[in-house]
């Protein structure tokens, strides 16, 4: 905590971690980055300009993993004609982290059109990561045409239903949810009754002190429903997680960093490795945002997450590709 005061923004909201009026919303748009440390009910965020002073070793983190998202392999339009190159750059960025993540999370839109060769290319590039274990959830682009059968054949072995699952790493309980299948006309992302029932049962036996990390493609909070950036039944899912002292929700889909802390839940969306999308309502549609070629890698990136046991601290560090 040797940050200078100039670079430190301390949001001291609900000390008890329960009062929902202590709602805090902080956003960091594409092209910027922030490091967030949550301790008790207090979120501290630090600007990216001092990020090089932070690493897992310094923070004493016991579990480190990296999130990548929205690689959209197969996309070849002017916003980014070479999404394979930028995914490779993301893997290089992860490999260069001072503390190697134990595994990777990919929060969906692995492919652009769910073509076998698109998945093959991503698999090949991810083999270049030092971290050998990768956990996936599908994006809406990965389930095109077959409701996700091919996705599940490739990435969903041992998962339930449309591909949801949970696992434990060093005492942290990870839950991968699927909110991109059986979408209803006019609706948002959707988890569905079967998945919600499974989630309720999955967390029922866990102690409330167990740190929870939930990951899914479409945000599990209402970012901008006008563009479909939300999940219709996410509130019910989150209601099952109220008893836990530390819940982190990691999403993709919107190709930019957004963060929100509400009570004991920290929400975070990651940058894409393929192309940026506009800020909510700042364009006619959420279509790919074109930026000058030399700026592209400053709006793409990866997310590095560190968990510190005992302090209930979770540090989320977003890094641009360049």
């Amino acid at each position, binding site marked *: 905590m040797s940050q200078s005061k100039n670079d430190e923004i301390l949001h001291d909201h609900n000390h008890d971690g329960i009062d929902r009026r202590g709602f805090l919303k902080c956003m960091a748009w594409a092209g910027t980055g922030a490091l967030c440390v949550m301790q008790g009910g207090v979120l501290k965020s630090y600007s990216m300009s001092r990020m090089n002073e932070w690493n897992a070793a310094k923070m004493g983190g016991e579990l480190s993993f990296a999130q990548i998202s929205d690689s959209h392999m197969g996309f070849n339009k002017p916003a980014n004609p070479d999404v394979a190159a930028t995914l490779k750059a993301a893997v290089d960025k992860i490999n260069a982290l001072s503390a190697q993540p134990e595994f990777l999370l990919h929060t969906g839109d692995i492919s652009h059109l769910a073509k076998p060769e698109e998945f093959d290319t991503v698999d090949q590039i991810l083999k270049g990561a030092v971290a050998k274990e990768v956990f996936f959830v599908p994006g809406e682009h990965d389930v095109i045409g077959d409701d996700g059968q091919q996705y599940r054949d490739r990435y969903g072995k041992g998962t339930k239903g449309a591909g949801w699952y949970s696992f434990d790493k060093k005492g942290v309980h990870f839950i991968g949810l699927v909110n991109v299948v059986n*979408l209803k006309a006019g*609706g948002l992302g959707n988890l569905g009754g079967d998945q919600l029932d499974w989630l309720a049962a999955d967390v029922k036996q866990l102690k409330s002190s167990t740190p929870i990390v939930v990951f899914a493609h479409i945000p599990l909070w209402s970012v901008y429903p006008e*563009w479909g950036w939300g999940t219709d039944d996410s509130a019910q899912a989150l209601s099952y997680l109220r008893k836990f002292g530390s819940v982190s929700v990691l999403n993709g889909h919107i190709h930019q960093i957004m963060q929100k802390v509400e009570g004991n839940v920290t929400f975070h969306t990651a940058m894409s490795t393929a192309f940026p999308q506009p800020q909510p309502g700042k364009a006619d549609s959420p279509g790919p945002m074109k930026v000058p070629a030399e700026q592209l890698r400053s709006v793409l990136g990866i997310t590095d997450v560190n968990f510190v046991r005992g302090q209930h601290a979770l540090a989320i560090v977003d890094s641009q590709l360049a």
Partner: protein
Amino acid sequence: MKAKVARIGLVALVIGLAATLTTVGRVGGVGAQEKVPAGVAVKIDNFSFGPATVTVPVGTTVTWTNRDDIPHTAVSSDGVFKSKVMDTDDKFSFVFSKPGTYPYYCTIHPKMTGQIIVQ
């Protein structure tokens, strides 16, 4: 009497229209005997169907064209028609042979909705 005259007038109009269409077909290189189907276009632009509501006579072919950089689908909410995924500039056509209202949406971006009203 009056109604009959009107009907004859309509028939003449239809024949006239058919002749025009046939001419257009010839100009476009289509064989003289082929009929050019009456069609209506729906453009997919900026994550929306335009026009969102289209009213057409029975037998009309509706053709969707995706002008976005992102793939979309056009799928009937009632299972009547289902496009394959349309990447940029891909098209999908469906002939509406029965009267009715056909709501549809993009299964990838379900906020995108539209309807075809067939009379």
